[in-house]
């Protein structure tokens, strides 16, 4: 059975796209478009583009907040310091590990939850959705504290509840070792953001045309075949959006690490590294350079996803 999706919409050009000879109507529509989107664009430039440009500019200086008189231009030397330091590469590895593990687990779990929500009886569906979404409503810092308290060797309940599991005893110090610390951090992240991914996938599931499912059933396709050949291909855009959002989110992980380990036991992420240079050390130049590298990494991830999935989001609008 080959992959089955609906043919793309005939209408591939945006409605407001001007023709070669722009008519008056198209002109006025374009003007209206700018009027409507303009304020948002200005706000975006103010809150996003300006700080990024400022960070790029600051990253070229040796600048300590408590010593502004000795600010000096050092070119790209801050980047040289960062890229030649093992701490940067270790933080990148830790961040990559957390991102990979959490996003992979969340995708599987989130998809399962989305299926449950999609198939649940209409009477219990609202309750089920609310129940699944509760962790996402919890503020990340609060969730991090909750997980820290649960696993704390003195006041936590995990060691006493799960003492029967091999390897867990009253003396298991979860935050005293790199791998156990990372495990708890990942668990907290997964618990907190799986609902988000499942919600996006639920929207994707709702977009899969029922007519294709029925046609596949008539052709005798099994559940697994329908999933692989009909459901997943038609959800490609939704899966990409879910994965992209969560990957970018996971890559900027900070709160859980800050609360649970404070960066001890080699659990520091790239965001944490930027925080330490900029806020704790007040080295604005060095911290800005770390932030710029983090920004570039995020842009790289976003571009790879869009290229890798070969999905043009502008083409999928309104297809459902």
């Amino acid at each position: 059975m080959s992959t089955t999706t609906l043919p793309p919409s005939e209408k591939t050009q945006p409605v407001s796209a001007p023709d070669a000879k722009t008519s008056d109507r198209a002109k006025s529509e374009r003007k209206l478009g700018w009027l409507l989107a303009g304020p948002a664009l200005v706000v975006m430039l103010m809150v996003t583009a300006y700080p990024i440009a400022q960070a790029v500019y600051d990253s070229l200086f040796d600048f300590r907040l408590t010593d502004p008189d000795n600010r000096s231009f050092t070119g790209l030397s801050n980047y040289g310091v960062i890229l030649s330091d093992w701490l940067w590469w270790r933080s990148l590895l830790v961040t990559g590990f957390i991102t990979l593990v959490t996003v992979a687990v969340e995708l599987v779990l989130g998809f399962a939850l989305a299926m449950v929500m999609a198939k649940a009886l209409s009477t219990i569906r609202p309750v089920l959705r609310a129940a699944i979404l509760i962790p996402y409503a919890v503020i990340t810092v609060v969730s991090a504290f909750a997980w820290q308290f649960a696993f704390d060797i003195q006041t936590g309940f995990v060691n006493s509840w799960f003492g029967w599991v091999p390897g867990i005893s009253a003396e298991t110090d979860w935050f005293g070792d790199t791998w156990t610390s990372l495990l708890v951090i990942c668990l907290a992240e997964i618990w907190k953001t799986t609902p988000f991914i499942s919600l996006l996938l639920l929207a994707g599931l709702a977009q899969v045309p029922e007519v294709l499912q029925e046609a596949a059933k008539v052709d005798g396709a099994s559940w697994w075949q329908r999933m692989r050949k009909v459901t997943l291909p038609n959800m490609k855009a939704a899966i990409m959006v879910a994965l992209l959002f969560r990957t970018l989110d996971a890559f900027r992980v900070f709160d859980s690490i800050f609360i649970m380990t404070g960066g001890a036991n080699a659990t520091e992420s790239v965001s944490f590294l930027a925080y330490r240079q900029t806020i704790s050390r007040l080295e604005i130049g060095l911290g800005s350079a770390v932030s710029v590298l983090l920004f570039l990494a995020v842009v790289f991830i976003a571009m790879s996803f869009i290229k890798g999935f070969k999905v043009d989001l502008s083409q999928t609008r309104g297809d459902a």
Partner: protein
Amino acid sequence: MSRVGDDNLEAGRAGPPPSYRRRRAVAGAAAAGLLSSVLAACGSDGGGVPTLTWYTNPDSGGQAEIAARCTEDADGEYVIETAVLPREASQQREQLIRRLAANDSSIDIMSLDPPFIPEFAEAGFLAPVPEDVAGRVTEDVVESAIEGSTWDDELVAVPFWANTQLLWYRESVAEAAGLDMSQPVTWDEIVQAAQEQDVQVGVQGIRAEALTVWFNALIESAGGSIIEENSTDPSAIELGLTSEAGIRAAEVMNMIATSGTAGPALSTANEDSTATAFEGPNGGFNVNYPFIYPRALAAVEAGTMDASVPEDYGWAIYPRVDEDTPAAPPYGGINLGVGAFSQHPDLAYAATECITSTENQAYYFVTNGNPASDTTVYDDPEVLEQFPMAPTIRDSLELAAPRPQTPYYSEVSGGIQRVYHPPSSVEPETTPEAATELINAVLRKEQLL
């Protein structure tokens, strides 16, 4: 306000009535009038009594009460309002510095942790202390608190309360181990006693400021210092970590961490968790601040702890590294800085004198458990009744060694926390060398921290 809202609602339902424009103009004028009066109220002090904002560290309400008392005493000269800073000392520093770097004039008085004072002073964030004030606020004050308020041989902050760590122990344990606690004790003796009695030695091994506090006490007691040659030029700072005293400090840290007496959670142990462990059945010894005594009494009062536990508490001067060297207990507490951009620095300094008066320090000691920097407070009968260990605290403050005073304290402390953590990984042969290399590279801006 509600009228404006009603008008809009009406207009939305029925479309703009003929008088809509007029009403909208009236509503607009009313909103503008309200906005301008709000802005006027925000922008002026009304020409009345100046308000001083005191940024305090979180406590049990003692500083707010002292602010109220001093406002009353000022008799209309000024009003003190308090604003609470984050709990962690490092975060208090971060918040204050970011505001001060932006020339925030709302910061009149600040409760400052002593190691951060040189950085504030060097950056020009502290208003100079008037000479007459400096003379009065250092009268009868313990030497370590004056040292902690001094930078470049000048008093730059006002000593308020001075904290120090004591060696807390269970009298029953010490007795069974045959330790004479009336005499100075060494870390070796304590660890040996704890091993014999199968109890814990509570030390703060968490990767946080507490680890630097512990390490500083060890190296100072061994006769050395974290910084041997200080300088305002970061690349000229000379560290003493690889000195004999530095190596000895690393040996003691390693010995405690690997002795099995520091508990399974040493690498995450802070002041609170070690106090909790000390209250438990395995509690034997604990180096900690005096708060653990009122904490235990409060637990008894709340019915969550047996009265026999605090009755068994004993206290002594902090342990020494070697028999023939004196102890160098940690020095902490809070000193008051006056913001360089304050609009009323003279009034702010007058307020600090009121805040740090003998009566207010005694009040703060008794109610919040924070020891005074004023030595005369320790003779107060009420203080002695509530804190029978007050004389030991005063003796400890006289011996106490402040952490290194440098505008780059954050880098030095951060470097120590990175290399000396977890304490069980400390190797006397390699760790001091590695820490020195890291901190030097960080100070020369050649490495990240």
